[in-house]
């Protein structure tokens, strides 16, 4: 699955330009330290953190996309950073559990 397909399937709202990448796996965390230690390249990162540090951590481990949950949105400087990193960031009103369920139903493992 690609990030474009993911966004369409889960009806996610784009907060940045769309960078179409291959998704491999999911990581759910609200702690940047945990993302650095455990997220893998190609993962979709599901989080409710909107701080620049989340973008920097996601970039370090090379996630393919970020899904921000609970209707939260990125501040402008985080949008700029994500676009420089070419990491598409999406938003949904769903919570992390709902997103995880949808991702699983969509076949993301």
């Amino acid at each position, binding site marked *: 699955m690609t990030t474009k397909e993911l966004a369409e399937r889960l009806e996610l709202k784009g907060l940045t330009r769309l960078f179409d990448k291959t998704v491999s796996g999911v990581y759910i965390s*609200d702690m*940047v*330290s945990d993302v650095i*230690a*455990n997220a893998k390249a190609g993962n979709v990162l599901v989080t409710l953190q909107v701080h620049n*540090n989340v973008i920097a951590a996601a970039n370090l481990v*090379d996630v393919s996309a970020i899904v921000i949950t609970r209707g939260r949105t990125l501040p402008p400087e985080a949008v700029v950073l994500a676009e420089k990193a070419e990491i598409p960031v999406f938003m949904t009103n769903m919570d992390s559990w709902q997103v995880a369920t949808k991702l699983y139903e969509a076949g993301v493992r």
Partner: protein
Amino acid sequence: MEGAKPGHRYEMVNVCPGYVMVEHEVFSKEQRSYFSAEAIAPVEEFREGPKIWKFSGMAQSFQFDIRDGETGEVTKYDDLLGLVPYSGCREDSDLHRLGELAQAEKVWIYIAVTFRPLEASRQDAWLATLRILNRYFGERLTTPNKKVLILPDYFGLYKEFSHGQIMADFGLTSMEA
């Protein structure tokens, strides 16, 4: 922890959750930070000779080692306070300008900040340690032409504790958007 996979030579091992503790000395206002693996963060004031250290702040963080899958050698990162992305520095700083220059070539600079400045005699060893950390993160990148470069702190970032460093979760649990 991120284990070694086929094609990955290095793995992160001995991952230890804990806290980055920040304290200040009551009389001199000197500030210091350290890692605590205690289950409950040590926030009590304590005396150290003539000095009295008081709690200033803390954040959840972790410590780790990197194991070389080919040689079995384990490199420790106990001196590492955190990684500061260039983007977390002031826009008018040399580091930010260097970072922007590198980022235009898809090279992402992060600064490895230590808990305290390392003695001159340990600088070479620290460079070797960071070389391994660069290899660990670098071999996991899958985005074409992208590079991550972790540099030693030649910019004095250790002097001022930065909430821009990304190995500790400072204030990120705030519900502010």
